[in-house]
């Protein structure tokens, strides 16, 4: 079967925010590397895999995205180094892919989506219209879009409408 013009899948993941305490970013990175074997990514990047990943979420901040509950484990390991908050209920996650995925996203996202500017491994904190959004470029042409859950239905409506012509 040909690759679809656009494919949209809602994802359930366990999320936690990590905010390094003042001067503790290095210690946080060391803890994460020792515990999960992942180097905390620098600005505009994510690292890890489908089981657990860490996405840059701002200066000194990261988001953990996992296939299992993660916040309690992180909070224990990072005690004194970072504030950890379970965000699993807070975000609406969508995975989009397909031949016309960038044409769809370009209708609302004000950033350069060309793989030269936003390659796999990249994270962009931006907005879709008035909805703040975190984008992860997972693998070539596959994107994860995270918005606050209260805006998820609105966002899904926009995404469906924008994708309709590429179905």
């Amino acid at each position, binding site marked *: 079967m040909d690759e679809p013009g656009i494919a949209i899948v809602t994802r359930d993941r366990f999320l936690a925010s990590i905010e390094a305490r003042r001067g503790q970013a290095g210690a946080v990175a060391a803890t994460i590397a020792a515990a999960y074997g992942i180097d905390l990514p620098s*600005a505009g990047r994510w690292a890890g895999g489908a089981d657990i990943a860490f996405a840059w979420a701002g200066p*000194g901040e990261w988001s953990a995205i996992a296939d299992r509950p993660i916040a309690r484990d992180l909070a224990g390991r990072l005690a004194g180094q970072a504030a950890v908050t379970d965000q699993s209920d807070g975000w609406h996650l969508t995975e989009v892919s397909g031949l016309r995925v960038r044409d769809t996203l370009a209708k609302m996202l*004000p950033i350069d989506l060309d793989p030269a500017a936003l390659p796999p491994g990249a994270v962009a904190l*931006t*907005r879709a219209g008035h909805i703040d959004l975190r984008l992860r470029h997972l693998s070539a042409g596959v994107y994860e879009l995270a918005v606050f859950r209260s805006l998820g239905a609105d966002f899904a409506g926009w995404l469906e409408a924008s994708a309709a012509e590429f179905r």
Partner: protein
Amino acid sequence: MRLTCPHCGNRGIEEFAYGGDADRRRPDGEPFGQAWMDYVYLRRNPAGAHREWWYHASGCRAWLVVTRDTTTHVVASVQEVAR
């Protein structure tokens, strides 16, 4: 107008919120009077170089100090505020 965030790169102005003149100073310790009136209400509104706060609201949520020419919108510098 676009700003180059030190963390996120070059972004459109719709991602940012304006925070006003970066050189104003609160007249802490002054009794309520002219100094507070000036601080709250009066702006220099220069034609030319201006240092101003910008917040990357839809991005990394960092506060930035931007030096901008108000007559041309040419941005001379964007600096992160020390955390």
